[in-house]
């Protein structure tokens, strides 16, 4: 018995000695096998480990759907990893407010800061301090369209809403669904609403409503709802739009089957089309969301996310300098090259000239020219308000409520969550 105990003790001692040599940093993100940015992140890990002997990054990828639940549970149980990923804005703010996230500001040299697209840094900033750095991709939403269908019916790319209505009428008359949309997923329909509010009221409309100098039932919000319902009544969207699921590709199925002509979607679709249907992909181009006559918003404005995934270091990380060092590897020029090779538009400089794909190049130009990029509402709003926004917008598409009711519900919840 005594012997066994001493052997055990010896093993434990040896164990601590062995582990003491290796610093292990745990990294959680959504870079699973199927994610196109995974090779770039793995490459950064390999480079970091090669340059820092004795330091290991323990990479634990978790699929997108489960990630949010996992990270929240870990955070509330004080089990958070050393380095973790978020979507910036309200998804990160929650943890920043609880003091769970390391303030990166002291580490941010001018040289490092200069590498980023300024708009992308803003989403990871709170009270003027840096908490999350953009790593994967800049994404916006554009209207994809089937060039062959447009050609067949002699249609031009619409620049204004009235031109768009004309396109809708012509397509409808020829038995083609103008816009494909799968709105069980809700954020898909929300894109229309966000663009419309931005075109009608400019970025101020949303900004003011959020900082409570304006309201969510101001005119642009109601007008956006009215336009959505006008399009629904004209038959611009598929039948059963609120029952269809974006995640299972029910929207793109219509596009590939020549049943629908247009598709408002995030520019990650640039990579989806060629892998799903190379033949149809060659016949797809895009145009920016049209202007609304009399609207205050600049038609060059975009909606989207200027960084997509933000990486942060947790406050309780035992080796913050090393973790921050790793973030530098995640945002360097080599990383940019790898991301471009994966079909992304990195939120930092270093590889613009490497972009080969025509649609991605065009996306990059749009992003560079945009005076303002409005973050998706479901990420810009506090969680509870985001839910109400998604539900009321879905109900607008289903003609279940009037634009005024939707806007008033939003405002009522905003008063509750944000104050008067």
């Amino acid at each position, binding site marked *: 018995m005594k012997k066994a105990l001493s052997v055990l003790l010896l093993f434990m001692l040896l164990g601590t000695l062995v582990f003491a040599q290796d610093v292990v940093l745990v990294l959680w993100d959504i870079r699973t096998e199927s994610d196109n940015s995974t090779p770039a992140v793995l490459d950064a890990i390999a480079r970091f480990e090669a340059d820092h002997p004795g330091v290991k990054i323990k990479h634990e990828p978790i699929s997108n759907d489960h990630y949010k639940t996992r990270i929240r549970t870990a955070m509330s149980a004080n089990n958070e990893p050393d380095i973790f990923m978020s979507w910036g804005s309200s998804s990160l703010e929650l943890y920043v407010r609880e003091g769970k996230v390391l303030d990166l500001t002291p580490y941010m040299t001018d040289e490092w800061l200069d590498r980023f697209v300024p708009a992308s840094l803003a989403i990871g900033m709170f009270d003027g301090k840096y908490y999350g750095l953009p790593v994967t991709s800049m994404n916006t939403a554009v209207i994809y369209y089937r060039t062959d269908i447009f050609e067949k019916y002699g249609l031009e790319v619409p620049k204004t809403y009235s031109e768009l209505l004309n396109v809708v009428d012509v397509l409808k008359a020829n038995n083609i669904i103008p816009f494909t949309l799968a709105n069980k997923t809700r954020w898909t329909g929300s894109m229309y609403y966000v663009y419309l509010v931005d075109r009608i009221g400019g970025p101020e409309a949303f900004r003011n409503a959020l900082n409570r100098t304006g309201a969510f039932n101001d005119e642009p919000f109601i007008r956006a709802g009215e336009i959505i319902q006008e399009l629904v009544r004209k038959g611009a969207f598929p*039948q*059963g739009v609120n029952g*269809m699921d974006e995640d299972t590709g029910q929207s793109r199925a219509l596009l590939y089957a020549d049943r629908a002509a247009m598709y408002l979607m995030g520019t990650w679709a640039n990579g989806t089309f060629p892998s799903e249907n190379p033949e149809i992909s060659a016949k797809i181009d895009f145009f920016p969301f049209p202007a609304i006559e009399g609207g205050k918003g600049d038609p060059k404005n975009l909606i989207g996310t200027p960084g997509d995934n933000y990486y942060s270091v947790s406050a309780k990380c035992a080796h913050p300098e090393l973790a921050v060092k790793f973030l530098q590897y995640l945002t360097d020029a080599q990383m940019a090259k790898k991301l471009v090779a994966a079909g992304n538009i990195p939120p930092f400089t270093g590889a613009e000239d490497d972009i080969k794909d025509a649609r991605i190049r065009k996306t990059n130009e749009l992003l560079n020219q945009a005076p303002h990029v409005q973050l998706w509402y479901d990420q810009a709003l506090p969680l509870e308000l985001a839910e109400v926004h998604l539900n009321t917008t879905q109900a607008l598409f*289903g003609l279940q409520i009037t634009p005024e009711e939707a806007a008033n519900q939003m405002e009522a919840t905003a008063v509750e969550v944000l104050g008067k």
Partner: protein
Amino acid sequence: MKAFIHSRRFVIFLFLLPAAFFCILYLVAPIPISAYYSFFDWRGLNQGRFIGWENWKRLINDRVFWLSVKNNFKLVFFSLITQIPIGLILAALLSSKIKGSRLFKVIFFIPMLISSVAVAFLWRYMYDPYFGLINNFFRLIGLDRFALDWLGDPGLAFYSVVVATCWQYIPLYMIIFMAGITSIPEELYEAAKIDGATSFQTFWRITIPLLWPTIVNAAVLVIVGSLKYFALIFALTGGGPNHASEVMATYMYVKAFTEMRMGYGSTISFSLFMIAFTVSVFFLYITNLRKNSRW
């Protein structure tokens, strides 16, 4: 002491201990704990702030919560009138000596073996308004007006989900009833046959009365299962469109895990527990009353 350690009782206790431990930790303990959390404004991260009856007051005025309660009871009703009778009829048919009953047993049981999420995918594709099996079938036979918007129409979405749920759970009750039928003594059927009873009469006069305790138990399973139902609805409609197919469990999930209002989520889950508990106790009580008066 030695006698005690070797006693049958102690051994039983010892063997039950691990299961009991996990049962208490994961099934029993969370009930009072969620009742406790229902008095807090708690985001899951911070300590939480005691707010007394605020969450409960909010719950009483929460339109969506009452809508989800209503949907739950509708689900109980439709599950009772479809799953039990159809399960019973299938069980009776398959227990009689018809050709190929073993093959049908296997086929009918398949839905039960598929995970809920896969069932949801299957039905999602069947309900697809453009490419789905159901709408294309109606169009093929010229009944275009029945080619509906099954999951998107707020008036229909809930019933579409109910159909998928019943499809999934009928086999479970079929198997339970088949097990019950095999335990009915064969002589009773033989006696009935000699007395000249039709097969309908034997079913009605012998199978049903002798199966009654099993039917009551199955009904309790249906009721409790429908009240706390989550998986298929969450995967098929997510409670939408705009809460049209919301049930208590999906609403609890959204509040607790999407909006991170753990305190309010606990309030919903504890009221779900109270409702399911009350209803099943009440149901068992009245069925017992009937049993005592009849037999």
